[in-house]
């Protein structure tokens, strides 16, 4: 998820003189950046005494919470890259949880993944038919799908799970679990190193251990899907055509691209991915289907996609960030409170940098927020639960506030396309 992230975005078609290409970020930057981030966390741990801040436990939990968000976001990315806004991700996820529950119970966990995918595709088909074929407003169709999917899943659950042993109208019987893997040798070493509580080294071991220990097979599939998405959309002719439908469908049409077909495929793929996100929730995160278990993760996936500037790498980073804040909040141990200090310091640096570049408004806003966060940190012992729960949303708002100029959505995203109207 690293290298491709911050590559130069495609040159804006509208701009007359080609925008100056930004420098490529050298390869050594990523490992160095990773080490620096861990170092910051290590310092933060020592300063604040929040021991859970870089433990393998919190990293493992963050990954488990990030995968459904990431898969939903990846679904949104496919759809929006082809120019269809997909607010129906939540609904597709809900269908996916039911599909995983039904097929997972009867035919095993692998069939559960496929079942979640298929049910997600059904949602994708509905959205695609409405928006691509009939030209319905994307938001209207998506919201309708969310509401319908909720009802359908509840009906299906009540219809098929009620009489099963351990099941009920609101939940499925327990589902069989997928295999989990650890990197042999490495994860034991890391666990040992983490337990020795050496500054920085143990934190590093915790983070690496979290990424290499007890990882579900589904998580590995999700990572492969991210890499696969990048290669398909940015390295193949198919992907170029699909993205052209999101940038300028009329231009694509004049060049012989069957825009309707590409958009249709993209929205169905989107449904499949969101459905898999739902399947992950049911099969791995909870090993049970339960009404309402998606809990708005489809929307957070959408936020993560915007956070990630409609790119797979950025989306992965956004999902991990949201997963991490969620894990930190649920696990307690003062991590969220400690993160306040981190926010204060980061904003202080950003503010100073913006002021240096003569961006007065942004610079001063950052400094004011930084002071507020610092005051908050030093005057309290914990963050109230109500506010801690809002961490992912606050993060998205912060990113939108400070990076909105750099975010660039597909040019024709959300526009209704009708064949032959471009003449």
């Amino acid at each position, binding site marked *: 998820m690293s290298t491709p992230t911050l590559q130069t975005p495609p040159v804006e078609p509208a701009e007359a003189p080609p925008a100056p290409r930004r420098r490529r970020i050298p390869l050594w930057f990523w490992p160095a950046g990773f080490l620096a981030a861990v170092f910051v966390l290590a310092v933060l741990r020592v300063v604040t005494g929040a021991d859970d801040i870089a433990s393998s436990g919190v990293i493992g939990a963050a990954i488990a919470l990030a995968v459904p968000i990431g898969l939903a976001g990846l679904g949104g990315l496919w759809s929006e890259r082809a120019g269809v806004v997909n607010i129906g991700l939540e609904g597709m996820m809900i269908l996916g949880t039911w599909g995983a529950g039904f097929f997972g119970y009867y035919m095993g966990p692998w069939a559960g993944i496929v079942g979640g995918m298929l049910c997600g595709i059904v949602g994708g088909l509905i959205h695609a038919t409405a928006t691509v074929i009939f030209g319905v407003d994307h938001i209207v169709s998506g919201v309708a799908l969310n509401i319908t999917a909720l009802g359908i899943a509840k009906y299906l659950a009540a219809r098929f799970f009620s009489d099963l042993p351990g099941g009920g109208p609101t939940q499925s019987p327990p589902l069989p679990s997928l295999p989990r893997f650890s990197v042999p040798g490495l994860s034991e070493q890391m666990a040992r190193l983490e337990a020795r509580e050496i500054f920085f080294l143990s934190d590093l071991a915790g983070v690496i251990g979290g990424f290499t220990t007890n990882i579900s097979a589904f998580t590995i599939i999700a990572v492969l899907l991210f890499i696969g998405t990048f290669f398909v959309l940015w390295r193949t002719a198919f992907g170029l055509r699909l993205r052209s439908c999101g940038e300028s469908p009329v231009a694509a049409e004049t060049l012989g691209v069957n825009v309707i077909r590409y958009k249709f495929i993209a929205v169905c793929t989107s449904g499949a991915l969101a459905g898999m996100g739902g399947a992950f929730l049911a099969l791995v995160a909870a090993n049970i289907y339960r009404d309402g278990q998606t809990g708005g993760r489809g929307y957070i996936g959408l936020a993560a996609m915007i956070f990630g500037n409609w790119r797979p790498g950025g989306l992965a980073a956004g999902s991990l960030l949201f997963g991490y804040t969620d894990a930190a909040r649920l*696990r307690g141990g003062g991590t969220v409170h400690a993160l306040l200090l981190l926010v204060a310091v980061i904003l202080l640096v950003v503010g100073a940098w913006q002021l240096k570049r003569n961006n007065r408004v942004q610079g001063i806003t950052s400094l004011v927020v930084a002071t507020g966060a610092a005051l908050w940190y030093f005057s309290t012992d914990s963050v109230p639960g109500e506010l801690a729960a809002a961490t992912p949303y606050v993060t998205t708002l912060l990113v939108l506030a400070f990076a909105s100029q750099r975010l660039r959505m597909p040019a024709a995203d959300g526009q209704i396309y009708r064949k032959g109207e471009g003449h």
Partner: protein
Amino acid sequence: MRQTMKYASVFAVAALALTACGSDSADSTDTGTADGTETSTAEEASDVRVGMAYDVGGRGDQSFNDAAAAGLDQAAAEFGIETQEATATDGEPESAREERLQQLIDAGYTSIVAVGFAYAPSIAVVAPQNPDVHFALIDSTDYEGENVANLVFAEEEGSFLVGAAAALKTRTDNVGFIGGVQTPLIEKFEAGYIAGAQEINPDIEIQRTYLTQPPDFSGFGDPAKGKTAAEGMYQSGADVIYHAAGGSGGGVFTAASEANTMAIGVDSDQAKTAAPEVQDVIITSMIKKVDVAVYEFLKAEVEGNFQAGPQVFDLAGGGVDYSTTGGKVDDIKDQLDELKQQIIDGEITVPSTPES
């Protein structure tokens, strides 16, 4: 394009808010079926006609509503009363609840049982309009009236006992509490649990957390959140966790089973009702006998002894208790029963709000 993005974000936020408001039930979030009908008549029919209004989930939710239904069934079989049942739908407007109650009354049902605190506002409207009808409102004292019986439970007393059990069973002197949604009702569970654990060991470390805050009620139905929170507690040294988190509790049990530790169930005897492979980790459950409350109310109705106002079902009355299924607390049963007796005798007063 900027326009679209603006709309998209507005809708996303609105949709989020709406989903959060969507589920409004504490112990159950479930399918909203249309009004179900069940009529039963026994040999010696009584002239009491009972209308039962369930919360979201209704009959068959293996939890709160099912417990109420069990009480109704028992009373119906014993006294031969005529019954009619109706179920709330998820996300329905307040007026729908009022209409449901009024329809039952219009159909000639004169004893109305409203299952769940969500009915309090609609009872407040319907009860004064129908002074001849008797109402039972479960889990809420938000509205009291001359023709309303508030059937509430001393959850804190039952939680005190399982808190004591946790403190006696822990080997690390570190126990946990996971609440589904931070409402005053769930805080009663927390307060009792803490008091019980500290009664045994004043220095015990108690980790506590709530999965969500109102108006986000997803904490009662998100096992992934329950599992994450429980894993965090187990990894920071806790070895017994008590959950009052409805459907999220399944995740707590999964985490306990993976970490080879102990968990405590809630509402019903979860060592019997939870998934078979995690039943082994449930050492006891705090039982809340909604069925007893409903049965007692109906019995009083049949006998013509309607009593308005709050009726607390506590340890003394057998309204709450701890379970012994699985034999995991057999070794400490004497101590727990002694504490139970002390509560019943009033030697121990259990707080119903946690110190912050």
